């Protein structure tokens, strides 16, 4: 808040004032109202967060400000957008063009799609200067290099000639930011800028945005669906639902004392760390016998790259050993590229390992073939991240759940299938008459229940869950995890639970294995790992979860990498 006050330089009053904005999308039926009589203002130098789920109209309202809504099928029914005293809807195309990029800039969710794939990043940044006649040729290029340096791209002199696909996801977002701040705009609109990124990269991008805002004094409008990101950035907050603003106010106030039922429901769904420690979801009945023993598992990919570079080797999984006991839940945690999903695919023989052994009930999985492999595949099942993608869209629920019986003929007589499907559906909390429907007729949480029912159909001993709840709403996540925990107790199952999300496994796993770049960096019982993380990487993962802005020390700059920050957060999920 103090930052915001410091940076107000250009006089008082709002920079952007939106009044009664209403936007429709036209189609065959009655127009769909995307934004419904929305009014809000953005003050100079402040950070306004617009919070809402997809379809809440949060992106459409800011796209209207940028004139990015295609009409038709879009239709601006009414309202005014007053930017620094200029009515935007009355400007001619040239007038609009002069504001876009120069006075208001925008960054988007998926920088790979939002950067032109066939031009170098330097050229795309220089284009901002050229389009607004701010600099040309060599000068524009020099400016581009300077901007890349500012947003933290290493070796900007050479990287300026790289194409977007040659950068990592976080770097691409930095390039987008460089493009946006090129002409020092008065306002930056960031539409879900960190949604596709790993938590540690997300933290860096949010830090960069905060620093740039402090430097330039621009107003920042941030659109997000993520409550924690919202809390860590916002001075003020607007909550949108169904095209309408349901709540607005100072961030701390909205979070501590939400008024609208919708906001209350959202905030209640945040996981609370203290509760997790006393979780009933952890296993109570771990018997000593080892079900799965993995020894020195390695998966190496050979990347052929050109005639001169020779072959590069890449170890997706690097000498990994662990075991899973009966009735136990092992959590495997890591960011993208850590090799956690490769392990799952290798254990299920979907990919072959380069070396190593894995013993299931004493028998090496990788040497199984024919009947033994089929028998193994009956005992070990997998639940995938995207339940919709893991089901054939042309099959109804009944044939999806009974597929294991069609494959393993001796499992169940055909005349018993129908009853058993009904039983399984009830077991996972669905109705038996759902059996004739198709996957697309269910919500995400329901689909994951169907996937679990399918996994249970072959009466497995071990279920591998690969990011099984990551695509779900937090309240739904909790329900699915409750279901998994309940099934474990009732059926004596073991789980390998793979996720990128530390707080989730805290509720559920008995032991956690943290992975980075194919290696295990830390392994231990869940409570020990959370209370006293040994490895730097584990600590940085725990730290990367965004913390509310009003709890951060206002005069300290954002933490440098490696430096420890206070562990205590408002929602306590990281409490040490």
């Amino acid at each position, binding site marked *: 808040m103090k930052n915001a006050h410091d940076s107000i330089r250009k006089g008082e009053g709002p920079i952007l004032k939106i009044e009664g904005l209403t936007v429709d999308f036209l189609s065959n039926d009655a127009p769909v109202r995307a934004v419904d009589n929305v009014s809000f203002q953005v003050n100079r130098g402040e950070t306004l967060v617009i919070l809402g789920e997809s379809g809440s109209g949060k992106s459409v309202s800011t796209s209207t400000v940028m004139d990015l809504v295609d009409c038709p099928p879009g239709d601006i029914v009414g309202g005014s957008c007053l930017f620094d005293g200029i009515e935007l809807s009355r400007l001619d195309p040239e007038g609009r063009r002069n504001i876009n990029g120069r006075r208001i800039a925008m960054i988007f969710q998926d920088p790979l799609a939002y950067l032109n794939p066939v031009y170098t990043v330097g050229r795309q940044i220089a284009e901002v200067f050229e389009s607004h006649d701010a600099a040309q040729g060599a000068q524009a290029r020099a400016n581009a290099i300077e901007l890349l340096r500012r947003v933290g791209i290493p070796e900007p002199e050479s990287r300026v000639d790289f194409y977007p696909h040659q950068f990592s996801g976080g770097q691409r977002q930095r390039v987008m930011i460089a493009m946006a701040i090129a002409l020092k705009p008065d306002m930056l609109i960031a539409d879900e800028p960190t949604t596709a990124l790993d938590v540690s990269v997300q933290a860096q991008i949010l830090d960069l945005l905060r620093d740039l805002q402090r430097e330039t004094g621009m107003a920042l409008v941030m659109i997000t669906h993520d409550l924690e990101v919202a809390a860590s950035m916002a001075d003020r907050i607007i909550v949108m639902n169904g095209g309408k603003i349901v709540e607005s106010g100072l961030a701390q106030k909205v979070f501590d004392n939400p008024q609208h039922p919708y906001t209350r429901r959202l905030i209640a769904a945040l996981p609370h760390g203290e509760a997790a420690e006393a979780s009933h979801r952890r296993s109570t009945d771990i018997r000593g016998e080892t079900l799965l023993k993995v020894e020195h598992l390695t998966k190496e990919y050979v990347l052929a790259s050109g005639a001169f570079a020779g072959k590069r080797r890449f170890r997706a999984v690097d000498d990994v050993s662990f075991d899973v006991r009966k009735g136990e839940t092992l959590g495997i945690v890591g960011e993208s590229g850590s090799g956690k999903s490769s392990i799952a695919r290798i254990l299920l023989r979907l990919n072959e390992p380069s070396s190593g052994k894995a013993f299931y009930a004493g028998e090496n999985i990788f040497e199984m073939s024919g009947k033994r492999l089929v028998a193994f595949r009956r005992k070990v099942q997998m639940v995938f991240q995207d339940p919709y993608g893991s089901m054939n869209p042309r099959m109804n629920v009944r044939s999806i759940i009974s597929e294991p019986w*069609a494959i393993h003929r001796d499992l169940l007589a055909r005349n018993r299938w129908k009853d058993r499907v009904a039983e399984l559906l009830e077991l996972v909390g669905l109705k038996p008459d759902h059996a004739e429907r198709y996957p697309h007729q269910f919500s995400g949480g329901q689909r994951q229940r169907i996937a679990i029912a399918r996994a249970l159909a072959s009466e497995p001993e071990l279920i591998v869950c690969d990011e099984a709840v990551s695509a779900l709403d937090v309240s739904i996540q909790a329900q699915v995890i409750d279901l998994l925990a309940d099934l474990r107790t009732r059926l004596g199952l073991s789980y390998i639970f793979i996720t990128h999300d530390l707080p989730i496994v805290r509720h559920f796993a008995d032991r956690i294995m943290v992975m980075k770049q194919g290696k295990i960096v830390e392994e231990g019982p869940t409570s020990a790992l959370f209370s006293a993380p040994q490895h730097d990487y584990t600590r940085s993962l725990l730290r990367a979860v965004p913390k509310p802005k009003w709890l951060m020390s206002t005069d300290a700059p954002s933490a440098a990498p490696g430096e420890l920050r206070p562990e205590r957060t408002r929602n306590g999920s990281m409490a040490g």
Partner: protein
Amino acid sequence: MTIISPDAEPAAAPGTSRVLLAYLRRDRLALAAAIFLALLVLAALLGPWLVGDAASRLGLRQRNLAPFSPDHAWIYFLGADTLGRPILARLVVGAQSTLGIAAAAVFSSMLIGGTLGLVAGYSERWYSHLILRLADVVMSFPSLLLALIVLYTLGPSITNLVIVLAITRMPIYLRTARAEVLELRERMFVSAARSMGAGPARIILRHIAPLVLPTLVTIAAIDFATVILSESALSFLGLGIQPPDFTWGAMVANGRGYLSTAWWIAFWPGLAIMLTTLSLNILSNWARTVADPQQRWRLQTLRKAAR
């Protein structure tokens, strides 16, 4: 961490015939094309039964009769050929063989190409590579030349014509099917089936083939026009259908020698080919717009809200 997840329900497929009909009415050109094609199919099915005799009846008095001649029967409306046979009747009979040959060729190339594509996409054994190389050879060589050589060797007949057309169009289905399989093979429901222990046969037949089929059928619809053009070019060059059978292409070839005296003999069948292929292309263009969620609004009514 995700707090509110976008849990969007996929929109209901625009597959209901009522909606499609409404889209068709919004595009008058596509509507006209659809009506023309429907009439053509009707003519091809019933025509030979109605005017089959007239098409082969020689008429000395009507030799090279000009079109729109007032004092002749309606069947001579488009004129008559050098042997006095009414062109209108011959067009109707020719429609059956033209469309029939094209349909047979398209169907068999879809079936063979699709099957080979499934195999080449799913398996990585030596025969997959062989299939691909063969497709490359067929693909990279001008289809008409290949057809000419094969037809000249095997001798022109309807069966050979269908075989040749099917072979030259096959690589398209093969490659599309293979590309789809390569993508589907990595989809999670295939991984799920494999992890449950499903064998290759079950995965291909139960999980992959049903999803490849709609794409192939779409291509077949578009390809129909190309095959009609190829067939008529071959028949025009004299290596396609042989008398007494004839297609529109062969009718153009017959009339070529009489251009300066009786232009209508070559003109009408060519126009029929053109209108048919044009209608097919217009319809497939329309279907592309319907299938593209970003363009579909162009065919919708777009009622604005009152203000």
